[in-house]
């Protein structure tokens, strides 16, 4: 009976903290911005920035010293690819370089004067391409276009040289082993479809860390921590109540944000979204919990409401890189893999990208899912420890007062 009674008191206490925390959140305009405005606006802005997805028709120039029908055909075919667009034919390399320096073009195709002669003589003819490297996407487009165009044109020349062969013989001679390439999960190789899923997860985690940090900073700054424990000594384990109550508040507030960010935004911007939504939601549960406790643990470092910005904003970039979405995790030095492993967003991104973009089931991402539950447990314990520590420190200062009297 006694046990039953203390459970009842415990639940009532958690519920009480939970309700108080709602009030704290909604009375604080700064926190409302973090919890609602930031998750609402950032995904739209990011999606809009990257929405064109691919780079098309990058300007280039041609220096054609051969001036033969074949060299002109080569240039024309280059222009016809979706990747490149010829803006000018230059008389010489100096003129072409000037065009490049003035940012009128990002690539130069150079066709040497003996281009056609060499082919007629049965030698291999080489064309050169000079690509600006400031943006890798431009380079990549040029490279694909150049390879395809020279291979195709070369294939046609081979065909002509065979003269009188059947189409089948020609195919066999030119390409005895054809190949097909399939871009899975992101058929256009779009930048938004690749980057946004990771950014979405990061927005969830970082807005939580920032908001929780700001709340904690406010409590520290105004010496209000004692309100959460004094006069409530009859409660055992009230740190546990405090931590669970607050976490329940944040979790319940983030249900809506999660649905909006992980479900609605990919649908709205037509990103690849082939996973089972139910499974994605169940995956989001440990991710949210781990992020909440991670944020609550980190909040011990926030001594002032606004330091939350200083301490946490720049970590977004680190967390994005360490998650392995750009630079794969296996290729990182081991110590960064370890650091990445203790950040919830690393596993969140891994799981979400695989489920949402690649259509994996929750069983396929069981490693990330388990890691998130482990992190939830670890950060729950650390949260309790830092809260206990803070209360201990606060008690030494000897503040008093009760929560209701606020």
């Amino acid at each position, binding site marked *: 009976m006694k046990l039953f009674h203390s459970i009842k008191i415990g639940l009532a206490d958690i519920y009480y903290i939970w309700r108080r925390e709602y009030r704290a959140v909604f009375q604080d305009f*700064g926190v409302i911005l973090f919890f609602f405005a930031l998750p609402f606006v950032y995904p739209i802005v990011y999606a*809009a*920035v990257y*929405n*064109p997805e*691919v*780079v098309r028709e990058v300007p280039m120039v041609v220096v054609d010293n051969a001036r033969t029908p074949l060299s002109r055909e080569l240039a024309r075919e280059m222009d016809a690819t979706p990747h490149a667009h010829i803006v000018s034919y230059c008389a010489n390399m100096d003129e072409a370089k000037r065009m490049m*320096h003035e940012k009128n073009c990002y690539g130069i195709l150079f066709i040497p004067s003996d281009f056609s002669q060499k082919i007629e003589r049965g*030698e291999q*003819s*080489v*064309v050169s*391409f000079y*690509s*600006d*490297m*400031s*943006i*890798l*996407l*431009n380079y990549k487009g040029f490279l694909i276009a*150049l*390879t395809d165009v*020279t291979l195709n*044109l*070369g294939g046609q*020349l*081979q065909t002509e040289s065979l003269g009188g062969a059947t189409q089948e013989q020609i195919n066999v001679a030119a*390409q*005895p*082993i*054809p*190949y097909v*390439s399939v*871009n*899975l999960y992101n*058929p256009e190789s779009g*930048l938004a479809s*690749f980057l946004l899923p990771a950014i979405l997860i990061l927005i969830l985690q970082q807005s939580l860390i920032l908001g929780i940090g700001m709340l904690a900073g406010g409590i520290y700054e105004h010496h209000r921590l004692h309100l959460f424990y004094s006069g409530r000594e009859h409660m055992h384990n009230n740190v546990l109540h405090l931590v669970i109550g607050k976490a329940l508040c944040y979790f319940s507030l983030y249900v809506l944000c999660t649905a909006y960010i992980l479900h609605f935004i990919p649908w709205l911007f037509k990103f690849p979204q082939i996973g089972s939504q139910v499974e994605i939601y169940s995956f989001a549960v440990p991710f949210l919990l781990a992020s909440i406790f991670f944020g609550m643990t980190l909040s011990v470092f926030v*001594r002032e*409401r*606004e330091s939350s*910005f200083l*301490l946490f*904003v*720049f970590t977004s*970039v680190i967390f994005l*890189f*360490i998650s392995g979405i*750009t630079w*794969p995790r*296996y*290729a990182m*030095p081991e110590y*960064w893999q370890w650091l990445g492993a203790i950040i919830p967003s690393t596993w969140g991104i891994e799981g979400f990208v*695989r489920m949402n973009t*690649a259509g*994996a*089931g929750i069983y*396929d991402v069981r490693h990330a899912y388990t890691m998130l539950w482990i992190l939830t447990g670890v950060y729950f314990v650390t949260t309790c420890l830092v809260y206990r520590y803070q209360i201990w420190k606060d008690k030494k200062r000897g503040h008093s007062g009760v929560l209701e009297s606020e």
Partner: protein
Amino acid sequence: MTEQKENTTGLWASIVREMRQLVSRPAYVLCMVVAPLFCCLFMFSLMHEGLPHKIPVAIVDQDHSSSSQDFTQQLGALESVDVRYKLNSFTEARELMQSGDIFGFLMIPEGFEAKATAGRQPEISFYTNNAYYIPASLLYKSFKTMSVLASGAVVRQVLLATGVEESQIMAKLQPIASDMHALGNPWISYSVYLNNSFLPGLLQLMILLVTVFSIGSEIKHATAREWLRTADDSIIVAITGKLVPQTIIFFAVGLFYVAMLYGYLHFPMQGNIWHMIAAMFLLVVSTQSFAVIIMSIAPSLRIGLSAAGLVGVLSLSIAGFSFPVPAMYLPFQAMSYVLPVRHYFLIYVDQALNGIPLYYSRWHYVALILFAVASTPLLPRLKKALMRQIYVP
């Protein structure tokens, strides 16, 4: 009396006052020195290889012939690829791809060897997981090269058999070859590519946050009037006194970046290093000025920090480091040019990566100088807010 007054007010006194504040709060030390240095070491060590090597892949070999095994071996010999699994079915490979064990796989169909020798064109297919951009594009390149080479090997055999001379084979195989020159970054190193843009971007973010925080804190803690008094009620002296110590620290961090990038790591530096040092100095000063503009328009610590965070973080996307600005929607194109780091980035491309005459970068230097002075007309407005020193939580 007068002598003592001179010591407690004026520009020097404001500088001393600011230096005291900077060392009194760990948050400043963290944001001005520790975080930028950590980011720098983090990025460099993360990508020290330049390109991810040994990307895990699978081979679905349904032929089990000596040709298909040769092919697998050749693929495994590439530096960019690590053949982790040899599988029998597409489904197995797809599952490994979804669970993230591999980033791509290549299928060799049944009857590959028989068809190839009989001239019946067996088809190789390869799949890359384009949810992961960098590994996917590297794999695409490796798979494609291998497939083209496989075709080449067969044609070569046929040609040799028909009596074509070895010296003519390349011309027959590939009449037109292409020679791609990646100007300035021939290794196509992602480390060169990303660090030259992201590190200054991160520095801009930290400068924005710290500048806004240091001005906003005066309002919050109601010390703004005292700050102005120290500066003899001159907003110019007050701002200069506050920002000069920060300029020195941030510029020192910027110099460290420049030294790491072009000195220690020998990243491409085709032009004059002083052009980059000047650009780095202008980046620091123009970003500080940008932050002062933010605080003059919205003199509230929280709103200022929100704006600084927004601008700083979005800069990394809108300044066009990874997705080129000309391909963005028009409003974002316009927005990119009001970011100091965009101009810094374009100067870097001209001066360090391509080493072209300074003349072509002139407007970007001018833009940075304009940013640096653009805050001056707004200072009276900031002064009014400082006198009121109303804190909005």
